[in-house]
């Protein structure tokens, strides 16, 4: 019985619980909340590839959500192309944009990169808000696009109940977590870490730091766009303020930072801790105290940055490790006795 096996068991347990939850929880509202929870966890984990592994601060990731959402929705509404295909198209588009942003900015210092991502995201939002058509494509400006819930079925990525969406996003989240884990153990992961910590030394050791960051950016933008399509198919209504807003970009970044960027569990942990705060403050205080959850986020963010810059996952993982050690020692003690 080693640390490793306990970790693996914990993961399997979590997976079983996650798979079984919809059988226990029947309320559509709670399922909806869970779906969005996984959605944010997925977004922050994808963000983490650039914001954590590559060590820069992207503050405009909602742009990729928007690209994914609009690409698949426009193709679906106007040409009847299945959103699954539209998802891939959106992903590719987002990858291209991501590389275009990254190419010139990765050579500069952090603040310029952050600014450039904000400028791109806002630029895209302004563009979508102000034009109704982009060539042959109808974007409908600030009014957004609605997906009528007809022709339900897997092929059209449209379902009546929340359960199918739940399993799809859960699957996506699991996939992205496994991808992050395998990248962290791969050459790309080592190179990203090295380039983030000591770029000069890394370059002398054969690391093309800018290219590694670009690869991370490409992967991250692709994955983020997929979530955009999911969102469109789940909520059936997209408009610039919902999918390309600065608020969304910041929320993703804040959650990942509070949870702990650069680690694998951090972003998910952040989502697990903060999304309920956001949901409950919206449900119970939405009318009387709007934006309360954002104030809380801001305060938590600052406190975390001052006292736990590597995120809340650090003390939490340490606690977990201590518990596991104690469990192991007790088991070993039992065997010996």
């Amino acid at each position, binding site marked *: 019985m080693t640390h490793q096996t306990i970790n693996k068991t914990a993961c399997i347990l979590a997976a079983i619980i996650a798979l079984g939850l919809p059988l226990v929880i029947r309320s559509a509202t709670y399922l909806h909340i869970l779906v969005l929870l996984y959605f944010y966890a997925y977004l922050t984990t994808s963000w983490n590839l650039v914001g954590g592994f590559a060590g820069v601060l992207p503050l405009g990731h909602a742009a990729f959500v928007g690209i994914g959402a609009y690409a698949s929705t426009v193709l679906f509404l106007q040409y009847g192309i299945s959103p699954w295909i539209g998802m891939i198209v959106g992903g590719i588009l987002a990858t291209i944009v991501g590389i275009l942003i990254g190419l010139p900015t990765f050579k500069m210092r952090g603040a310029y990169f952050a600014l450039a991502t904000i400028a791109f995201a806002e630029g895209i939002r302004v563009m979508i808000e102000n034009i109704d058509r982009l060539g042959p494509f109808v974007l409908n400006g600030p009014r957004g696009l609605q997906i009528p819930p007809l022709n339900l079925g897997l092929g059209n990525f449209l379902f009546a109940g929340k359960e199918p969406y739940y399993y799809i996003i859960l699957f996506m989240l699991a996939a992205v977590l496994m991808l992050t884990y395998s990248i962290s153990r791969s050459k790309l992961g*080592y190179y990203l*870490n090295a380039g983030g910590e*000591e770029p000069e030394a890394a370059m002398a050791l054969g690391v093309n730091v800018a290219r590694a960051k670009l690869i991370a950016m490409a992967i991250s933008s692709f994955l983020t766009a997929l979530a955009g399509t999911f969102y469109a198919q789940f909520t059936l209504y997209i408009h610039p303020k919902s999918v390309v807003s600065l608020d969304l970009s910041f929320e993703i970044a804040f959650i990942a930072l509070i949870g702990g960027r650069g680690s694998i569990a951090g972003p998910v942990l952040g989502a697990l801790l903060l999304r309920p705060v956001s949901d409950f403050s919206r449900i119970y205080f939405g009318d009387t105290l709007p934006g309360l959850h954002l104030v809380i986020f801001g305060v938590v963010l600052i406190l975390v940055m001052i006292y736990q810059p590597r995120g809340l996952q650090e003390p939490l993982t340490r606690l977990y490790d201590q518990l596991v050690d104690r469990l192991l020692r007790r088991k070993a003690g039992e065997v010996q006795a």
Partner: protein
Amino acid sequence: MNILEIKELSKDFGGLRALNNLSLTIEQGQIFGLIGPNGAGKSTAFNCIAGVYAPSAGNIFFNGHRINGEKPWNLCRKGIARTFQIVKPFATKSVLYNVMVGSFAKTGNRSLAEEKAMEVLEYLQFVKQKDMRAGNLTIADRKRLEIARALATEPKLLLLDEVMAGLRPSEVDDMVEIIKKLRNRGITIFVIEHIMRAIMALSDFVVVLHFGQKIAEGTPRQVASDEKVIKAYLGDEYVVSGS
């Protein structure tokens, strides 16, 4: 073929000429020393070779190929590795992790990279510390880590930039042994050093820089008794007449 040839290398920083018409040739398998007072331009020369700076004039040839202005990571692929005067370990990661970054230069496979890293650590008798956090190492071990990382990239030419600085005499001796071992692996070594007895013990050939110019070259013995060298280091009053 000579592994490294520098022909009339000059480097300017604005109005300051840090290197002036430097020429030297390094043969395969040598341990080649570069010495000179502080500010003589030694690190600048290294940085030109390693791709950090592009030469203002002149040419650098590695195994017959001109490498002026090539990027450091490409040079690493070609077989030039370097250490830094002020060590730059990946402090939050383990020793093994650090060395693996180096060994990934020649393979994409993680277990292979790990194997090679372990092999390098064993060669340098560094295995016990493999899981230690690099930021917690002593200065001597950090220097050893610099070399281990560079070694993992399988270089043909290794540039060591003042790798003995800050070490105690016993540690200096250990380092000299390590460098000799590296030569036994077939690596050509280009050393910048201030610690005289180390350079003299190690080098087959030495070049002396002063104010960016080469003022002497030869075997360690020849250079040590060269009047110009003594003047450069110690000033006019110390030149013993007749030597």
